[in-house]
């Protein structure tokens, strides 16, 4: 049973999702700590798949661990490291463990990570992987071989409306929707007018596709410059960096920037909720959620 699907399709409640911190150490104790921190606020949380092209505990293993500790996962599958057999194996594995939310992504290139000498795979692309998830939902593998019981995936994906070619991003999301995606999380971005145009364009054609823009919690201007320089597909305008950098209290300025982004995004057509990436790891997450009118454990 996917609570995420239920909240989106059966209620008008706002959907809050987050990123599960990568697991490199700390074992299950670390998983438990992360779950305790995130569970009160989020309906489901992304179990990432070698995020930013760095190796970590795997998507399937983290998704299972989250579920065991009572937090609903959105299990990501990235096309960079796995061919179509491995991708379908991840899907069948998720099905075996009762994981229903899966998110299919093309993924950053290997050159974004700490092992740039790696062979890049991209045997499928994002839209094809979404379509393969739909095929599994219909009870067969890509080959037509039966998979029984068939999964009941709630299929998610990601899009970056802030990267060129901007007009085409709408068409690309519509293609993902035709392939079977029901929810789209967006890349972090700092161009409100691009977001407005994208949401209006998507909602005009597929009003039932849940759009979930991302907002990141940071403490200073430094991560803004870092994202601008280093993270593929993220550009931060200089005046946004300056606004935080030139403030006497950078942490407070960064907080208000994030809060404004949340309020702006939530008012746009097609937007059903927000994806919060927390790089602060302090009590600001709770402050943000409360300022957005949330109280703990609202989804239960």
């Amino acid at each position, binding site marked *: 049973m996917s609570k995420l699907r239920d909240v989106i399709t059966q209620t008008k409640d706002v959907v809050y999702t987050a990123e599960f911190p990568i697991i490199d150490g700390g074992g299950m104790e670390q998983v438990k700590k992360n779950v305790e921190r995130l569970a009160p606020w989020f309906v489901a949380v992304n179990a990432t798949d070698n995020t930013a092209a760095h190796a970590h505990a795997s998507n399937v293993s983290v998704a299972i661990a989250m579920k065991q500790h009572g937090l609903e996962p959105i299990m990501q599958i990235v096309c*960079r490291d796995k061919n179509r057999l491995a991708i379908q194996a991840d899907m069948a594995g998720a099905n075996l463990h009762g994981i229903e939310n899966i998110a299919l992504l*093309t993924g950053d290139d290997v050159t974004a990570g700490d092992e740039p000498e790696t062979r890049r795979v991209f045997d499928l692309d994002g839209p094809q992987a979404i379509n393969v998830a739909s*095929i599994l939902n219909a009870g067969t593998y890509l080959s037509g071989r039966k998979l029984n019981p068939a999964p009941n995936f709630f299929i998610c994906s990601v*899009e970056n409306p802030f*990267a060129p*070619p901007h007009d*085409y991003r709408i068409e690309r999301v519509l293609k993902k929707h*035709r392939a079977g995606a029901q929810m789209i999380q967006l*890349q972090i971005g700092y161009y409100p007018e691009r977001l407005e145009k994208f949401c209006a364009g998507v909602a005009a054609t597929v009003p039932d596709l849940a759009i979930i823009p991302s907002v990141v919690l940071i403490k200073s201007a430094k991560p803004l410059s870092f994202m601008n320089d280093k993270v593929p597909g993220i550009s931060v305008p200089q005046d946004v960096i300056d606004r935080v950098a030139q403030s006497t209290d950078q942490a407070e300025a960064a907080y208000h920037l994030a809060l404004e982004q949340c309020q702006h995004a939530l008012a746009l057509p097609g937007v059903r909720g927000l994806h919060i990436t927390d790089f602060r790891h302090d009590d600001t997450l709770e402050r943000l959620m409360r300022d957005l009118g949330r109280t703990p454990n609202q989804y239960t």
Partner: protein
Amino acid sequence: MPKLLNLLLAVEHGMKKPVWDCTMCGQCVLHSTGMTCPMTCPKTLRNGPCGGVREDGHCEVKPEMRCVWVKAYDRKVSLPLPTVWKEHYNDLRPPVDMQLKGTSSWVNLITKRDQQTPAGWAKRQEETHSH
């Protein structure tokens, strides 16, 4: 017959390599992608650009190169290509069939071999196109 096939292969490669940097994937989609070859994308994406395109429209992986899909979209919008080609721009193109690598896409077009997809994929396309 094999001689003719080899000849066709040589002619196709000879024409497409200099213009499109053809990799002979054997299942050509140039007409539906604004006459820009998606196999020159470092991620070989056949269904549109990744999320990593740079602010200046250049490629995430090769900053010196314009993103293949930025080019394709510009051309689709501005080139006087046949309407049917443009209509196919947003088709969901199937995964590459690695068995066709190094064969002639012209021959595969005539024999319709390039339209064969795995049974699961074919069934889904049939179902999604019938309603």
